């Protein structure tokens, strides 16, 4: 396990090499949160409500998904496709290291950085703006939110990895990814709360894995789901995680058969 810890640590170190880049990245994150915050603050005045969401729960939903997406939807494994095409993958196949865990460790290093800075920034913003946000105090919901986020980031990791594995068969790994990213944000509830959609469509969404990436964790946090809904959701996440794992492993094995270690 030590090796994967080292990978995570090196990823962390690497981020600090380009300090300006890192600072600008954080500024971008803060600006994004601020614009969303003021937009929705203006859309729903105090006391009013929209689609059954009052001001504080809608603000919490929007800001919460943006925070969760910065944790869940940040994965460096998009580089897998390029590594396959450039032949760089060979470096890993030649060493006794698990390629999945390697990328997962890189993600962990990356996410740890993002989480720590997000918490600092949010605390500062909270003190300055004193926003009317919904604060969950029950540790039961907080714990389940955490569990849901862990499933979400593993599922997203597999999705991203799978898109990278296209590289075994085609050098064109970017086009499918762009389509995926656009669809994902909608299906995962990054644009608006999904339960304002018609019931039928929403229930279809619920059987897909995307809902569990953003919408589900934030709804648990808001305390708007029943215990049964939460456990059903977690079971569905678990099943999807396993299914994705099996697919990724299968595609990876098939890919290695046709891998040509080209380029170098």
């Amino acid at each position, binding site marked *: 396990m030590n*090796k994967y810890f*080292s990978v995570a640590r*090196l990823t962390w170190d690497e981020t600090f090499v380009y300090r300006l880049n890192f600072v600008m990245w954080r500024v971008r994150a803060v600006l994004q949160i601020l614009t969303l915050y003021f937009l929705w603050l203006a859309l729903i005045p105090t006391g009013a409500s929209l689609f059954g969401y009052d001001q504080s729960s809608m603000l919490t939903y929007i800001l919460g998904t943006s925070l969760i997406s910065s944790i869940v939807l940040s994965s460096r494994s998009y580089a897998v496709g390029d590594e396959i095409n450039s032949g760089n993958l*060979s*470096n890993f196949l030649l060493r006794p290291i698990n390629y999945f865990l390697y990328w997962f460790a890189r993600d962990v290093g990356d996410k740890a950085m993002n989480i720590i800075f997000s918490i600092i920034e949010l605390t500062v913003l909270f003190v300055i703006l004193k926003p009317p946000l919904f604060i969950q105090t029950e540790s039961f919901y907080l714990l389940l939110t955490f569990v849901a986020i862990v499933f979400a980031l593993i599922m997203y990791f597999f999705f991203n990895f799978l898109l990278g594995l296209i590289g075994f068969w085609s050098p064109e790994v970017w086009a499918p990814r762009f389509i995926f990213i656009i669809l994902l944000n909608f299906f995962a509830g990054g644009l608006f709360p999904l339960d304002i959609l018609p019931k039928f469509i929403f229930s279809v969404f619920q059987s897909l894995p995307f809902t569990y990436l953003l919408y589900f964790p934030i709804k648990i946090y808001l305390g708007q789901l029943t215990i049964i809904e939460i456990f059903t959701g977690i079971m569905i996440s678990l099943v999807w995680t396993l299914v994705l794992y099996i697919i990724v492993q299968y595609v990876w094995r098939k890919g*290695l058969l046709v891998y040509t270690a080209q380029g170098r």
Partner: protein
Amino acid sequence: MVISVSHLSKYYQVHKKEPGLVGSIKSLVARQYEKVKAVDDISFSITEGELVGFIGPNGAGKTTTLKCLSGLLYPSGGEISVLRFTPWERKYEFLTQIAFVMGQRNQLWWDLPALETFLLNKEIYEIPTKRFNEALSELSTFLKVDSLLKTPVRKLSLGERMKMELIANLIHSPKVLFLDEPTLGLDVVMQQNLRDFIREYNKRHHATIILTSHYMKDVESLCKRVVIINLGKIIFDGLLDTLVKQHAPYKLIRVILKRNVEENILRTLGRDIKFQYPELIFNVPNEKISETVAKLLQQLPIEDITIQDPAIEDIIREVFNSEQ
């Protein structure tokens, strides 16, 4: 037997595209594939501690063979065993005992000092600290980069980076080494250093080494045994000396003349002659050497005379030509 290969084949599917717009559209709708036989039914075996040179023109199948041996590629047919493992299964015990050095691979973390990559490899290969420190100081002293270990990789020169890559590749003291064009891009001094290093490594660790190179000097100075590959097939496997004897049963007699001589006179002395005053080169069969030298000394105004083996490059070229 450390490495044994029997009837190994590797075919690639290559997609063909006709030129022009029509060709592009055609290839979008219905791709044409062509099977390329990169390696076609080759067999050989190598014992522990051997240092073998693979020779062949570009695209002969040398690198593909090494990729199969190191487990990067699944063979299309045949059996391979390296250290009693099947390479493509990529078992932990197998991977910790091999290294594949390619001339232009980069596993170093670009923005971080090379030492960080070495330390990561220490964890990956689970090398005990004591052994790691010994290996690192041995390698970095020999390659003269011990002062650069803490410099970010992107600030290093190409040669320095190559040396760091080499250290990263060898830090786990592999028993079997595949070197694909290891001297590519290095200056003459460094090439010599690297050759010394490979020879030394082979002796000290009793490592089995396969080397491919375009520089015949690499092969000549390092390998007793050579395997010549062309178009995916082995056309010679044996000692370098044997190759020379078989394909070059002649020597070169090089003469420097004191003054110019008419070409007619030269013709009577031998058939295969290159002449550009004052240098004169005879191509003489081994059994006629002494006879010819005696004749030359008698009949020509000689300043200097030497007898040489033909260049390895020429012999190899002859081998390829006789194949076609």
